[in-house]
């Protein structure tokens, strides 16, 4: 095998250690003829008990409340009497224990999937439980994240939310997946945990268990059979200490802000160590809700964030939901192409009162705290939409009103939009997917979704220039801001603030202080002149290394 593999780096940092592949689902052998039904039925029930018990034990050990809830729910399903009865009937019909378990779970999972919605999402849980019970019956290793008792680099086809809920960052050094893209679940999780990660590495599963590998989460390079001198571990969060504020080597200020979903995402020392929030997603409050959260409930949630950051900037994004992020009370109909449908600000075409209530709650929260509150609308497409939003927000006394730039049309008309609003914030994940006509969920198109795509950088440059012309700030709040080199390129393009997940702030802050604003501009020029994303990344990285 070659000694080097290439994927897409999605979470910066390097780490080295033995590779371990994620356990695969067991393969069913040909059916056995059953001599004793009671023996097979007892074996099937024992498998269910074992799986339920193991999950309950893991739940008891889990420190993260979200992980514990997922594991407890799974343990409860494994102990479901319906499944045990269904296994009994399958054995009575002539199946051996492993096939009976497989059949019982698959039937239930298919039923849930047919029901759709919340129940349909539980189907994957059942299939995971099925694979565990069958693996136990066949004496095969448990599928899922391995637990070898020492730190390792996890290699997987792709990671599902349920896998990552139980991922222990003290044991897993880095993530490498075959599928996934820059904004996939794996990438977002890795950045949140501060783990180096490489996705879209096609040959990853060919790496044999135990091979010592080195993962560079910025360049996307994986070195096989790494030697001790190349295995120095640089954990992105552990070794870098950075205290703000964000600025270039020559003192040009670039606020480094956080992307958060609620006050719970803020560190304990937020009041002293956080420059502000560049993206407060407000969907969390609405998710899973059958009715709209009340004015008071919203006011309270927003006030909590604002009070945690006295005097600091907090950019609140109004409700960003649609057919892709469904909310029951919006009662949107199914759309064939949700990413291009009624989402973001567009939901206020039919339900204006939801936005009005939210703006009212935001205004009340702003009065109750002394943070510097900015409010912005997601999925703005035209200057007229921006103007309407600004009118409604200002009518409630909100003074800093902005528009998110995610739609290429809005980026092209950034100057006209800025005639109506006070600032712009570029969501690079969506702007990338719309500019490249590549679905964010599609791992096959990861190269097109690369935030280094020069066409995406062109659109960002357009917005930054419009901001300069109008004398108004233009920030970036997409995942692009979390890549230290790309962050410098963005600053070079004229972006005035960067917002990212908490784990990325230190690395970006340290890198930004290595370069002057002029040097950042040369990095930006090099990236813009490149023919494709890989060349843009390489050109800027080479220049950046020369200067550090």
């Amino acid at each position, binding site marked *: 095998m070659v000694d080097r593999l290439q994927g897409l780096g999605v979470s910066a940092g390097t780490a080295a250690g033995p590779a371990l592949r994620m356990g695969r689902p067991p393969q069913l052998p040909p059916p056995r003829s059953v001599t004793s039904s009671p023996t097979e039925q007892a074996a099937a029930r024992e498998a269910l008990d074992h799986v339920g018990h193991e999950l309950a034990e893991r739940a008891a050990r889990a420190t993260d*409340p979200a992980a514990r*809830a997922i594991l*407890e*729910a799974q343990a*409860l*399903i494994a*102990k*479901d*009497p*319906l*499944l045990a009865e269904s296994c009994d009937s399958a054995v009575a019909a002539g199946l051996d224990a492993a096939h009976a378990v497989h059949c019982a779970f698959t039937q*239930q999972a298919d*039923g*849930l999937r047919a*029901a759709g919605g*919340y*129940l349909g999402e*539980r189907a994957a849980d059942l299939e995971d439980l099925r694979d565990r019970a069958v693996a136990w019956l066949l004496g095969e290793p448990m599928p899922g994240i391995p637990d070898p008792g020492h730190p390792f680099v996890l290699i997987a086809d792709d990671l599902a939310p349920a896998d990552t809920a139980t991922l222990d960052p003290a044991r897993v050094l880095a993530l490498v997946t075959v599928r996934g893209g820059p904004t996939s679940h794996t990438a977002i999780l890795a950045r949140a945990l501060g783990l180096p990660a490489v996705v879209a590495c096609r040959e990853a599963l060919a790496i044999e268990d135990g091979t010592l590998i080195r993962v560079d989460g910025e360049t996307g390079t994986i070195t096989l059979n790494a030697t001790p001198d190349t295995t120095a571990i640089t954990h992105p969060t552990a070794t870098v200490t950075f205290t703000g504020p964000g600025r270039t080597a020559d003192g040009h200020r670039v606020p480094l802000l956080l992307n958060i979903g609620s006050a719970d995402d803020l560190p304990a020392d937020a009041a002293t160590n956080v420059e502000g929030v560049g993206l407060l997603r407000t969907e969390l409050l609405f998710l*899973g*809700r*059958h*009715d709209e959260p009340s004015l008071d409930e919203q006011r309270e949630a927003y006030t909590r964030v604002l009070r945690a950051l006295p005097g600091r900037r907090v950019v609140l994004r109004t409700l960003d939901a649609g057919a892709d992020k469904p909310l029951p009370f919006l009662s949107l109909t199914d759309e064939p192409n949700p990413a291009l449908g009624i989402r973001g600000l567009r939901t206020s075409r039919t339900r204006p009162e939801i936005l009005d209530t939210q703006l009212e709650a935001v205004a009340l929260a702003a009065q109750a705290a002394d943070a510097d509150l900015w409010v912005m609308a997601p999925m703005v497409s035209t200057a007229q939409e921006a103007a309407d939003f600004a009118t409604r927000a200002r009518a409630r006394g909100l003074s800093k009103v902005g528009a998110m730039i995610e739609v290429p049309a809005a980026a092209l008309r950034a100057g006209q939009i800025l005639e109506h609003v006070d600032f712009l914030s570029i969501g690079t994940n969506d702007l990338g997917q719309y500019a490249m006509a590549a679905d964010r969920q599609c791992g096959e198109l990861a190269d097109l979704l690369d935030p280094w795509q020069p066409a995406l950088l062109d659109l960002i440059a357009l917005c930054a220039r419009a901001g300069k012309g109008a004398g108004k700030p233009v920030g970036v709040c997409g995942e692009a801001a979390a890549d230290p080199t790309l962050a410098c390129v963005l600053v070079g393009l004229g972006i005035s603030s960067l917002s990212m997940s908490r784990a990325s702030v230190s690395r970006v802050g340290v890198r930004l202080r290595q370069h002057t604003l002029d040097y950042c501009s040369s990095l930006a020029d090099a990236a813009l002149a490149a023919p494709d994303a890989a060349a843009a990344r390489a050109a800027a990285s080479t220049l950046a290394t020369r200067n550090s």
Partner: protein
Amino acid sequence: MPERTVTVASASGLHARPAALFVKAAAAQPVPVKLRIGDGPLADARSILAVLALRVEHGTTVTLSTGAEDGPAAHEALAALADLLSRDLDAEPANG
């Protein structure tokens, strides 16, 4: 046949955490309890899959029953489970 009718108070209905708490409580009872909406099909209250399949929303009125089981244990089980359903479990903090 002992029965209790109660309106589900949890904001998310009988899904996710409220459903798990309810099923765990039902499994801890000495008598088997069934759940139904109106005259709909009976679901085993100890089965999370059966309970989820009922798709009980916030504000739905459900009926708890113990079938042939009667006596103090049956009535206590119904009272305990009815009390659980009448509380907004989403608003109560998770233990630990």
